[in-house]
């Protein structure tokens, strides 16, 4: 999927930003989070075990993401996700301009959103390990390690987490559509091909 040279707007280049590992990681995360969410939301006794497996996959992917965040290529490093407040405010100022952001990886706000998503999923994974569903008689593998009061709190937080994940998921899709149709920047395609529009430093 190469972009025709004519389609590249002036002042931008079309560059390889996302490596194969992070792209595979991203789409595996999509599968594990969506399946885990649905299996949890519509859980029954017979499918509950699969909710656990989806959770373990998500947990494993989060662990890999931490390794990427420390030793991975520049755009996926945690240092690239964190921007100062001034950079974020400046970026918000240009957000509604009708041209691609052209960030080499995440924009300052995009990096922040990525961190929020990762933290939310880590939260969901951790609370899930200690949760109890005493209707279906299932409990997370660490549920017996903590008090029943903690089980109840973890379960409540796990259910709040599911709502938060839904909100973040819808925002994620909404923002991708906003970039596609308002800013003429196809970020979803970039996560498939790895190539995205990058602003030339001196156009």
């Amino acid at each position, binding site marked *: 999927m190469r972009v025709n040279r004519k389609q590249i707007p002036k002042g931008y280049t079309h560059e390889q930003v996302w490596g194969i590992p992070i792209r595979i990681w991203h789409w595996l995360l999509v599968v594990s989070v969506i399946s885990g969410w649905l299996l949890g939301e519509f*859980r*029954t*006794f*017979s499918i509950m*075990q699969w909710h656990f497996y989806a959770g373990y996959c998500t947990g494993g992917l989060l662990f890999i993401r931490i390794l990427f965040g420390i030793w991975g290529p520049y755009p996926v490093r945690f240092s690239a996700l964190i921007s100062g407040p001034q950079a974020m405010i400046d970026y918000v100022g240009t957000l509604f301009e009708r041209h691609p952001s052209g960030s080499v990886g995440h924009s300052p706000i995009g990096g922040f959103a990525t961190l929020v998503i990762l933290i939310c999923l880590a939260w969901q994974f951790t609370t899930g390990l200690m949760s109890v*569903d*005493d*209707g*279906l*008689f299932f409990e997370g593998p660490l549920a017996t390690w903590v008090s029943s009061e903690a089980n*109840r709190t973890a*379960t*409540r937080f796990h*259910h709040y987490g599911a709502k938060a994940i839904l909100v973040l998921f819808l925002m994620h899709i909404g923002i991708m559509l906003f970039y596609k149709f308002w800013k003429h920047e196809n970020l979803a395609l970039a996560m498939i091909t790895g190539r995205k529009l990058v602003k030339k430093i001196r156009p």
Partner: protein
Amino acid sequence: MRNILLLLPVIAMTMTLSTTTYAAERDPIKKAIEARQAVMVLRSWYAGPLFGMAKGDIEYDADWANALANSLRAELDTTDRGMWPEESDYESYSDISRTLPEWWLDTEGAQEAENQYADAVTQLAESAGGGLNMLRSTIGDLGKSCKGCHDGYRAE
């Protein structure tokens, strides 16, 4: 005389404290909440190993499964409406009760939930001793009824 006057507030406080403690111990609503929670503990005690067998965590034992399911079935006949007095909900007794006010407001839904549970237990009592596959075929409905009622009428 002065010493006796100083003692008066102490005596008054002791009396107030002991009467409030006494009142709390004798609170019929609190007793009702404890009684119905005891029923839940008992149901969970019987159902736990059945779910464990269905999951494969515990080895299936037909006699035991049959006995457990029939204990659940027998417990259906022991409930008393007196365990669910008005104003014994989560908002009135947030420290002990987890029953949401909806349980009293949505009487039809609550009745439906009770019927589903009774149906699931009746089915289970007939099948639990008939082999692991029979147990597995009916225990899902019990889980569904427990979960349904907890989702709708119990504070998280």
